[in-house]
């Protein structure tokens, strides 16, 4: 377990964003209660004795020359997130340790760098280059790593010796509340070593279960789970490059190579890809993540490459490799059991071809732009069917059930196209329940010469927002245009205090 502490995250953020170096001590302030206090200070300010927690007025009185900047928690969080993204190069299990730390589960990953100490060297080198003040520690447990990073030697390595590292550290290293640390200090307990060998029962009785739980977690007697920022991909393939790559063709070639590597693993697990993500790690620390979905479990490397061809073509801003990518990772985010390939049945080949087309279109245009109609369980026309992303729909999408219903109910004609929502029209109609004689829709006047109906469609009377009953008419105007329009509400309800019925146009017939 590696704990990384970015000691001066907020001030480092300001300094990094500046073009010119300034030498004035930098402090970050924020409002706590009614007082403007320092929330962070850089090393120069700390040397002057300006510590976080000090009131701004007092700090200004002490040193008028300081550089004061208001805090921006969101920017800090975003920066931490991007560093966490960047740390994905070491391990897929990265958790944010708010407000200014990261936890990396590097078990099983360190050998890729030639060992844990080499990994630390690589990480520290890159952090130094980007201008972050940091300290980090590797230990067997989250608690011990956290404590060692913040209170131990910088870049310390404490695997297997958690106990000896911890005993000399103060209680705040156990991530206890300040109140607890104070009450421990009040009885003369200052260091963790003071309680390690004390009987447990009296400690729990006096200080509550938290103290010993934190101690047990740090010592590894109790398991502490890590909550990674991103879900862990079931299948991952990655490639590091000695020389950064930048051209789109190279990226696609790498994607193909990684997909080939994934293929055997996927076949072994009997799975196929439903959603896949390509992460490209730029040399300057920016990570580009590009995801693509599929409409059926997929294994073929060529198909996976084809998805990314479209995704890269559709990127609003070009790939922007900067100085190049030095690592690429292909991770399967969602995998689904994939039946073994059937060969030789013509229609299934066609279906596969169609799925490929849908995937390609969805990758380029976005899944919400490629849709299929799904029959829903409702009698209200606009709710009776919805358009869903085609990748998410399979089978007959409820239409065979609809056909059974239609045959039983002898459904009156339905329009070929339905407007997104019924559009109000001005209509002159026979009272109480006649069809309109003429109406105005989108500023054009239509003279009705023929009408069929009404077809009564009740509103959802069981719901408060169900709306009134509708009487649908199919009308034809003088020039032969055919419309589907309805009157919402009944004239007879006018007596019961309902509003006057209104007319709407809902669809068009061929």
């Amino acid at each position, binding site marked *: 377990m590696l704990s990384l502490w970015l000691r001066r995250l907020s001030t480092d953020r300001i300094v990094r964003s500046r073009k010119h170096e300034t030498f004035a001590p930098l402090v970050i302030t924020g409002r706590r209660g009614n007082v403007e206090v320092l929330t962070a200070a850089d090393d120069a300010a700390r040397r002057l004795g300006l510590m976080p927690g000090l009131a701004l007025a007092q700090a200004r009185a002490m040193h008028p020359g300081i550089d004061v900047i208001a805090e921006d928690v969101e920017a800090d969080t975003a920066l931490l997130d991007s560093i966490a993204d960047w740390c994905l190069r070491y391990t897929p299990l990265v958790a944010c340790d708010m407000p200014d730390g990261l936890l990396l589960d590097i078990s099983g990953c360190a050998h890729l760098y030639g060992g844990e100490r080499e990994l630390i060297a690589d990480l520290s080198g890159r952090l130094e280059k980007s201008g972050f003040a940091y300290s980090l520690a590797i230990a067997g447990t989250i608690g011990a790593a956290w404590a060692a990073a913040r209170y131990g030697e910088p870049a310390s390595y404490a695997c297997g010796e958690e106990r000896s590292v911890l005993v000399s550290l103060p209680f705040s290293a156990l991530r206890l509340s300040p109140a607890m640390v104070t009450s421990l200090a009040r009885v003369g307990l200052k260091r963790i070593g003071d309680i390690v060998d004390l009987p447990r029962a009296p400690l729990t009785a006096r200080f509550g279960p938290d103290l010993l739980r934190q101690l047990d977690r740090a010592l590894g007697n109790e398991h502490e789970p890590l909550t990674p920022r991103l879900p862990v991909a079931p299948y991952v393939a990655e490639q590091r490059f000695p020389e950064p790559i930048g051209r789109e063709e190279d990226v696609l070639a790498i994607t193909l190579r990684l997909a080939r590597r994934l293929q055997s693993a996927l076949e072994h697990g009997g799975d196929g890809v439903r959603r896949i993500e390509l992460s490209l790690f730029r040399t300057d620390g920016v990570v580009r993540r590009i995801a693509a979905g599929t409409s059926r479990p997929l294994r073929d490397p060529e198909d996976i490459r084809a998805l990314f061809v479209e995704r890269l073509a559709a990127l609003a801003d070009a790939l922007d490799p900067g100085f190049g990518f030095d690592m690429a990772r292909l991770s399967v985010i969602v995998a689904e059991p994939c039946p073994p390939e059937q060969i030789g049945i013509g229609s299934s080949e066609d279906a596969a071809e169609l799925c490929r087309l849908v995937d390609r279109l969805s990758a380029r245009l976005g899944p919400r732009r490629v849709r299929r109609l799904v*029959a829903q369980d409702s009698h209200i026309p606009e709710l009776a*069917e919805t358009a869903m992303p085609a990748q998410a729909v399979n089978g007959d999408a409820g239409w065979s059930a*609809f056909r059974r219903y239609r045959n039983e109910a002898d459904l009156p004609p339905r329009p070929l196209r*339905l407007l997104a929502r019924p559009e109000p029209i001005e209509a002159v109609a026979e009272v109480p329940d006649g069809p309109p004689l003429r109406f105005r829709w989108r500023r054009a006047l239509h003279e009705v010469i023929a009408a069929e109906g009404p077809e009564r469609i009740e509103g959802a009377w069981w719901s408060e927002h169900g709306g009134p009953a509708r009487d649908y008419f199919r009308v034809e105007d003088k020039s032969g245009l055919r419309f589907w329009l309805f009157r919402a509400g009944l004239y007879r309800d006018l007596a019961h205090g309902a509003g006057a019925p209104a007319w709407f146009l809902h669809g068009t017939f061929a």
Partner: protein
Amino acid sequence: MIDQLRQRLQALQRRPGIEGRPSTLPFGVPAIDTMLGGGLIRSALHEVAATGEAHLPAAAGFALAVVKHVAPSLRLFWIAEDMTFAESGVPHGAGLDAFGLAPEQLVMVSAAHRRDLLWAMEEALRCGATTAVIGEMRAGAIDGVAIRRLSLAAAESGTLALLLRTEPPGDGSTATTRWVVGAAPNTNVIPGREHCERTRNPETDSEFVSGFRARTFGASRNDEKIKPRLAAQLVRNRRGPTGSWILEWSDSNGQFILATHAQPLAATALHRPHRQVA
């Protein structure tokens, strides 16, 4: 050598889908089918334009009627720009079903702009598994090269391509046929005559016991349901003459029948507000 090159040149210049007895989609209306030489060519691009924005549903109906003949197991892609589905409405599954098209076979694609639309159309055409592709675009000219590309893609894969447009385009076209379609009024209708389907309850011997009446206002002369009519004009045909017909959609056999043998003798009077009456 020269002969060989000439032959190669000829092979390259061959217009797609014209030579070699292409498979056709007959309308079922002999007058049109003979003019088209058996019907619409299946592996080609056809343009269907509405006479005006308001007549788009009729043009769409015409296109879908053509699509209906393509294959028993249809795979239809309907590709349009974002605004089109919002303005003219989304294809309605229940309506398609009543029209005889299986709604589960329809994939709707909306594109943000014209370039994406043409790209999506070409992709869908090049994929061998689709049987028909409808591309719907609003007013505005299309590049001749784009039309040519779509024609070639359709010819290669044997897919029917239909370009649906909101108004008759002024530009020339390399499409195999171009149709201008509008709705036509049904002359059989007696305007305004009310025709009630009376329901008589034998027990109470009263009419309209069900609370409201189902009726048709403006009935057809022979008391049938009103059939939709289209005025279809073939304005461009690469294989022969052009013509214009009034077609009637017959629900019972699911195809067009010729409603009149010719256009109405006298055209309807034009609306001329700028002409002052003396």
